[in-house]
């Protein structure tokens, strides 16, 4: 399940936008300009089922996203979707992993408190006995230079 973001959860001044997510789901997004730096030495790890519903998260995911584990398990992975991310990036991600290939890219993720954090994300299909049973996403600290390039590039992809 995914619900609209609530002003009470937001830290700092925020903007509001409605994002069209997968299928016909629309989500009210409240977002700020506050960046949380990626912690050194950590990996953010999650797995989803074939529909993109979160089935596993690690501690770093919980810490960085601001959600509790209970809120994350069962939620669609697009709970992290930031309005500054071009839809084309996620279309490319899904097209790639559904072909059974690895996807890698730089992603601006949305926190529960409206803030954001940049990651270098890698997503791979989980193949068990020859069939894809889900996807694993591992995020690591990105280079600032690459992030700056994405800040310039992504607005041109809408």
């Amino acid at each position, binding site marked *: 399940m995914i619900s609209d973001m609530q002003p009470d959860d937001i830290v700092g001044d925020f903007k509001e936008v409605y994002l069209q997510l997968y299928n016909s789901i629309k989500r009210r997004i409240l977002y700020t300009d506050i960046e949380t730096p990626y912690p*050194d*030495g950590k990996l953010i790890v999650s797995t989803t089922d074939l529909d993109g519903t979160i089935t596993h998260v690690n*501690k*770093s995911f919980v810490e960085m996203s601001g959600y509790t584990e209970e809120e994350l398990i069962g939620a669609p992975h697009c709970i992290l979707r930031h309005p500054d991310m071009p839809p084309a990036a996620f279309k490319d991600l899904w097209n790639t992993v559904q072909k059974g290939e*690895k996807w890698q890219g730089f992603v601006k993720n949305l926190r529960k408190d409206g803030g954001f954090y940049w990651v*270098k994300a890698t997503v791979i299909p989980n193949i068990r006995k020859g069939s894809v049973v889900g996807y694993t996403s*591992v995020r690591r*600290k*990105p280079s600032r230079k690459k992030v700056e390039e994405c800040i310039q590039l992504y607005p041109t992809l809408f």
Partner: protein
Amino acid sequence: MSYTFTVSPDFSPDHISGWYIFNTWLQRQTCEAIHLEMFNDFDELHAAIHNDQIDLIYANPYDAAMLVREKGFLPVAKAAGESDEAIIAVAESSAVNAVEELKQGVRVAYTDDPDVRLMGMIMLEPADLNSENITPVLAGSYPVVAKHLLKNEADVGIFLAEAFDDLSNLIKNQLKVLVRSQISVIHHALLVGPKFQHQRDAMTELLTAMHHDEKGVAILKSLGFSAWEKVDDEETEFMIDLMDTLAT
């Protein structure tokens, strides 16, 4: 029939006798003839794996991926509460205080331990460093990585965290840790090959009960950990998937 057991060459030299004692114990418990073969380096180990000469192995995560996916090995157990972590360090006298300050062409000392190098290179990525724009300084062991830093033959070193922690205080005091990984889910594991899988369930039972008797506790101590913990297939598959995501 005799089986061959080996241990990933990145084990601490302090525990070599422990593995021989463990092997003797394992033979008695399973009533199987098991020969412990120690390889000097990863090249020798990989050649033996390639030639299907290994039946049991305490493998590092990188080799575990290949053994499970390509050679039909199955996981049995891992050291309870232990995980493989890496450290990026420089000499204490270095002006560098953060990974982001490292520049292309930097001299990076590391061993041939593939998973530690992988984790270490990931921690250098925030400085836009990769295997193509660093100057590699290959070392035979982690104390030699430290030596390269202290003699200014390398600017930065990649260590297995456990090996770094085992360095003498005299050496550690002359080094500065920039980053210590906190990945938690990457670990060594005891795997059984296709010819030894008839013993998998019995071994799981034996190993996970080992810390309940006095002799078992003493052997575990000589290996450097407190207990074995069962590892199931999915946990290993998950770790391998995770390693796959890092291998780019």
